[in-house]
């Protein structure tokens, strides 16, 4: 080969500008996240301001009108909502977590390749089923179908406060909503953890197998540790979706404003998001402020939840 023209390190490098511009754009996009979030926060805060800076008598009147006189202060209103939101979401996550991880492992390491491909596809598809459809299904199909089961639970496990009877009929209860939300978030956790599990380095899997590990031990030694942070982040995404889910809750749950863990009884809890959707259409200006105030609380809660989760991940990977 002919030698090329001599290069030296002094020669200008082409693509320098592109390099700088690209870096600038990347930084800008990173910072844009901050800006957007700040905008959302500020807007919510601004719209919720009358709760703090406005006429307090009018505020408590608004809250009374929302709650039928049950609460008269914003905190008395948001407290049970918050409780309900967290209760429903955690239940949903609890139900779906182990099932999801199981399915993800099934697809990534247990099922024959062809079946796994088909299942992956189905899971991706299910992740995409809109919540309004889950709402339809939950409200019209699941609610009547699941009543005998809840009734059975209430009859035989009623001594556990969670399952205290009588089971509401129709079962438009926290328990049923949690099942629907679990079904909704299941594909999210499954599809993300499956992707991560599939990325487990072959080297590590082989190391485990060569030590005489059974398949499950291989999963425990190589796959799960590798996927841990992915699983946590998938769960957080799922929790985020559950916390903010509106339509399915709105269409299924019979709401109430209690600090109650009677999962099988109706009119016990309500979630913040569903409450906003239910009340927003008929709310006046001050009512909207109150609802946005609750939205702000939800926003802060997700902040806290994610912050804690992040700390857990950091510790795990340290």
């Amino acid at each position, binding site marked *: 080969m002919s030698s090329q023209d001599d290069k030296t390190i002094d020669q200008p490098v082409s693509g320098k500008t592109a390099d700088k511009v690209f870096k600038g754009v990347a930084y800008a996009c990173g910072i844009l996240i901050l800006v957007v979030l700040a905008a959302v926060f500020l807007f919510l805060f601004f719209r919720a301001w009358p709760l703090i800076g406005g006429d307090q008598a009018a505020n408590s009147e608004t809250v009374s009108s929302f709650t039928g006189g049950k609460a008269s202060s914003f905190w008395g209103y948001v407290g049970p909502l918050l409780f309900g939101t967290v209760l429903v979401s955690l239940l949903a996550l609890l139900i779906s977590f182990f099932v*999801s991880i199981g399915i993800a492992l099934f697809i990534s390491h247990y099922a024959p390749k062809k079946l796994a491909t088909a299942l992956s596809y189905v899971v991706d598809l299910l992740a*995409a089923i809109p919540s*309004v459809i889950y709402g339809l299904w939950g409200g019209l199909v699941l609610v009547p179908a699941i009543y005998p089961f809840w009734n059975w639970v209430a009859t035989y496990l009623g001594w556990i406060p969670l399952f205290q009877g009588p089971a509401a009929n129709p079962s438009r209860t926290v328990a049923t909503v949690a099942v629907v939300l679990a079904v909704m978030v299941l594909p999210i956790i499954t599809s993300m953890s499956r992707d991560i599990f*599939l990325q487990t380095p072959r080297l590590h899997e082989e190391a485990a197998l060569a030590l005489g590990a059974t398949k499950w*031990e291989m999963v425990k030694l190589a796959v799960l540790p590798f996927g841990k942070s992915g699983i946590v982040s998938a769960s957080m995404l799922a929790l985020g979706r559950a916390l903010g*889910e*509106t339509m399915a809750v709105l269409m299924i749950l019979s709401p109430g404003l209690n600090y109650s863990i009677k999962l099988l009884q109706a009119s016990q809890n309500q979630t913040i998001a569903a409450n906003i959707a239910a009340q927003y259409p008929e709310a006046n200006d001050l009512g909207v402020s109150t609802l946005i105030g609750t939205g702000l609380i939800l926003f802060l809660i997700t902040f806290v939840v994610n912050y804690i989760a*992040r700390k857990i991940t950091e510790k795990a990977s340290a």
Partner: protein
Amino acid sequence: MSAVEKSPMDGAPKIDFDKFRPTRSAIQRRNVKDYFMRGLIALAFVVACVPLISVLWTTIINGIKRLNLNFLSYNMTGVVGGNQTPSGGYGGVLHAIIGTLEITAGAMIISIPIGVMCAVYLVEYSIHGKLATTISLLVDVMSGIPSIVAGLFAFSMFTIIFGPGTINGFEGSVALSLLMLPTVVKSCEEMLKIVPNDLREASLALGVTKQRTITKIVLRTALPGIVSGAILAIARVIGETAPLLMTAGFISSTNVNLFSGQMTTLPVYVYQEYSKLSANCPANADATCVTTIPMERAWAAALVLIVIVLLLNLIGRIVAKVFAVKTER
């Protein structure tokens, strides 16, 4: 030779390996556990299948009844009660399909470039800095923004900029892009992270600029993952109802202009039809007047929505396959 070095085994403890030999029962236990976990994992799969199949089955069975060409080619103008329209149908979802596609496309165009570039910033440029930690934490937080709050945000933003009562499709796109963004960033970030560092080093060592390394090697290698992440993000928002109720509104005629006028999307359509529950028929109506038509339309529209999602998935898969990258594991 080894005389030069003293043997590393000098001073090593003596080990009685028989102590560690697996006992029969230990092996038995491990095998049982292995089978047990295998069973549990398969069971998890079966358990999850029940509701998921039920959802699909219900939607298909109920939806197929009214899903026909007429339903796909008309909107809801001129539909009165349970009466048949002059074209022989009962109204349709053409306007909602157009609305869904336009609004979702708008959201994609906003959020995918931003999301990918943000992930690039997080993975390729930030050096574990405070800013990056904050941003990626906030991305997590953002994924928890309730869709309804996103709707309120977009609504008020447009109110401030374009005057009160502004409602249009693009407003819905903005609300949805807020919801899509964190999903795009997160999945893209994960995908960029698993691109082996070897490849970046190989490219940089060839004297390739960072920008070209990222666009031509890193993003290229991660592309299938990014595509499937983007599809997941689209799936996350294409079914949103609550924020679109306030931002894009609801209209029974076809509106193709994303930037002006209300726009119906499929989920909103489903919800509105569900809310109607039933339609009235005049006292002297004949059999062509169907009182249960709104619910039937709701299920049919739900089925259309699922089919659209399915098609998107298919397209995504084909794209991912065409660009597929064989990485060793």
